[in-house]
């Protein structure tokens, strides 16, 4: 082996950095894009149920959220955060939580509330204590209660445009329970009922939710505990008063429970970190949702329950933080050899 043929590395181009030098191929952008992909079936189902205007609402909300974020970031003099995909995701979720007939300008107001007040005012992604999409939706619900609770019936064809002349329909939860179901279980399941445009189709939501669990982006404990708690409480109430309280299956499949449990109570930034925290968070959301639905003045409580539990997240994190490995929980107890 002659010396001349051996090539040595060019040391002027070496990078010096702290370990580890291997990284998993993970990024915030990737996570957000996967969640958006997981929401796609439910969005399509929304368009199929409520017509092309559903697509319009989704597009307006998404575009408006991205625009507001771009504007805020510019005002703050920071680099663009749009590529991380979180603004688009918030917009999509906001749209899915609105009735198909929400006026366009109202969607924009919702986006300003969601991104401006819900997220950027705290410093942007990672710092917001409350779920931005829900901040947007609840702000609209408070400000424009009529528009936000006017539900059109599913359209005959997805190509129709839902408007003021569309047939309105009460939601399964909005109708006082009179001992019998307004909708068949099948209608409830596939989402041929009134409701926010992205929340009605159970199989489409489950498909996305299961994908997120399989990819370990969300913890299964949250939806299971959330939905399970609602089922248990409404089930007990239904058994106690079958004339006044709808059966648990109706509670599970109507309103925003599935959407909220899989996609919003699992938002990374605003929910607890650990497994135990996820259980507490899910149960808490379930209790609040059931209480609002059964005894509150609103027919639906998923948004409120998640926002309220968001406020408890730091506390939950503090009290569920385990002891590091080797920190002795019982001082004085000697290690047995």
């Amino acid at each position: 082996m002659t010396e001349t043929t051996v090539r040595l590395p060019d040391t002027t181009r070496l990078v010096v950095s702290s370990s580890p030098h291997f990284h998993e191929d993970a990024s915030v952008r990737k996570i957000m894009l996967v969640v958006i992909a997981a929401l796609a079936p439910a969005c399509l189902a929304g368009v199929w149920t409520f017509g092309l205007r559903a697509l319009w609402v989704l597009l307006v909300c998404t575009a408006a959220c991205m625009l507001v974020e771009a504007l805020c970031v510019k005002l703050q003099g920071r680099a663009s955060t749009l590529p991380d995909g979180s603004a688009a995701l918030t917009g999509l979720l906001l749209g899915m939580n609105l009735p198909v007939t929400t006026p366009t300008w109202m969607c924009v107001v919702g986006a300003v509330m969601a991104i401006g007040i819900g997220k950027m005012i705290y410093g942007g992604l990672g710092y917001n204590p409350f779920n931005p999409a829900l901040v947007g939706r609840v702000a609209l619900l408070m400000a424009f209660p009529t528009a936000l609770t006017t539900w059109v019936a599913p359209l005959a064809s997805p190509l129709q445009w839902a408007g003021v002349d569309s047939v309105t329909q009460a939601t399964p939860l909005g109708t006082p329970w009179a001992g019998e179901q307004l909708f068949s279980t099948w209608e409830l399941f596939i989402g041929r009922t009134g409701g926010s445009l992205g929340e009605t189709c159970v199989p489409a939501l489950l498909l996305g939710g299961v994908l997120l669990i399989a990819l370990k982006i969300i913890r299964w404990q949250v939806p299971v505990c959330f939905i399970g708690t609602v089922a248990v409480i409404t089930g007990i109430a239904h058994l106690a008063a079958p004339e006044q309280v709808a059966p648990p299956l109706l509670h599970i499949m109507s309103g925003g429970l599935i959407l909220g449990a899989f996609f919003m109570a699992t938002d990374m930034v605003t929910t607890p970190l650990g497994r135990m925290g996820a259980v507490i968070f899910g149960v808490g959301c379930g209790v609040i949702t059931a209480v609002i639905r059964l005894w509150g003045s609103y027919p639906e409580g998923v948004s409120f329950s998640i926002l309220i539990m968001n406020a408890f997240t730091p506390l939950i994190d503090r009290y569920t933080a385990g002891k590091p490995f080797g920190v002795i929980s019982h001082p004085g107890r000697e290690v047995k050899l």
Partner: protein
Amino acid sequence: MTKKHLHFYGGVHPQESKTASGAAIVSAPLLATYVVPLQQHIGVPAKPVVAKGDKVLRGQLIGEPGGFISAAIHAPTSGTVKEIATCLGPAGNQLPAVILESDGDDLAAEPMPALDWPNASPDELKKRIAEAGIVGMGGAAFPSVVKLSPPPNKTIDTLILNGVECEPCLTADHRLMLEKPEQVITGARITARVLGVKRVIIAIEENKPDAVALLQEKAAGTEVEVRSLRVRYPQGAEKQLIYALTGRKVPSGGLPMDVGCVVQNVGTASAICEAVCEGKPLYERVTTVTGSPLVAPGNWRFRVGTPYAEAIKLAGGVKVDPVKIISGGPMMGMAVYSLDIPIMKNCSGILLLAADEVRQYESSPCIRCGRCNDTCPMGMMPGILSVQIEKERFELAEQWHVLDCIECGCCAYGCPAGRPLVQLMRRAKGEVMAARKAKAAKKA
């Protein structure tokens, strides 16, 4: 025999990339010059006992321990001391060093007499381990004799030999176990005799079944037990390994001896065997030189003081320019910027990474995904902790046991926000230690 505790908490499974595992150990040819650092260990540098112009022989003492936590340094070959100077170490710091010009004859000094270890007293054996300059060869380079001298109030009942080699890419320990199994086992038994323990476990990850089988065969009939562990980084970290094998948890801030264990690398055991049975001091070691940019990755027995450039030449040089050169493995090794750095007693590998293997990224705020919580083998919350450290809340970090961080890098490995979690932990550890020192100084 209980097999219950073959898992530790958390951890990750990076791509193993052990491409050099089939390459037999080759002795590196003699060089014209060796740069032998006088500090190849944790603790005080060794004091040079040679001067410029002195003739030395291979294995001759050139640096004597500079304190209690220190180690002797020996000449890697015969030749002339060109000068006592400094050299660049892998951490980027300057180390005192003896520059040795080889005479090409490689004449050995009179070896220390071989000891009949089964009948030698523990003190005799310990003295030899100190004289041979043996340090932990897994990476930390802690002087072995100190580790093998637990205070009298600590009872040691288990010796664990670490052949896990959980760092991706590295294969030096694997090859050593395959090619020198008797040395490894004898070294383990000598160490067990020093410590007076009856229970000796050699731990190997199950991705090295050939080593497990061979050592099991060679250890048959002795007190040495060979155990195969699942592949999971950082299985080879002391505390994790002890837990996986014995179910004992080393207390926070404590040492393995607090739970009756001593953990030693297989390379160290082999060096102890050579020192005791052949009287050979520690002046060479097996190092993996690997990475996709290299023409011919492999495992070599290098003399201490071989510059990295010579090691890379032996591996055929590079096909493409690497972006990183790492001393050690990819998870905990140190990135270096010079090829003049010499191989030291603790250098288990030289790893070259090409541009497509290294992720360069912008770091963004924590999105609280919780991955670092799930993978931290110490059960800490690196993400939340890092946010507090950024705010320089070091007292809080101390309360949250930041000093327990073993810097394994599992958190940063999987962080989607690309946060510099390990750096932040190191920063906090440094600040906490400094604060403790200042407090102690104030008191005194």
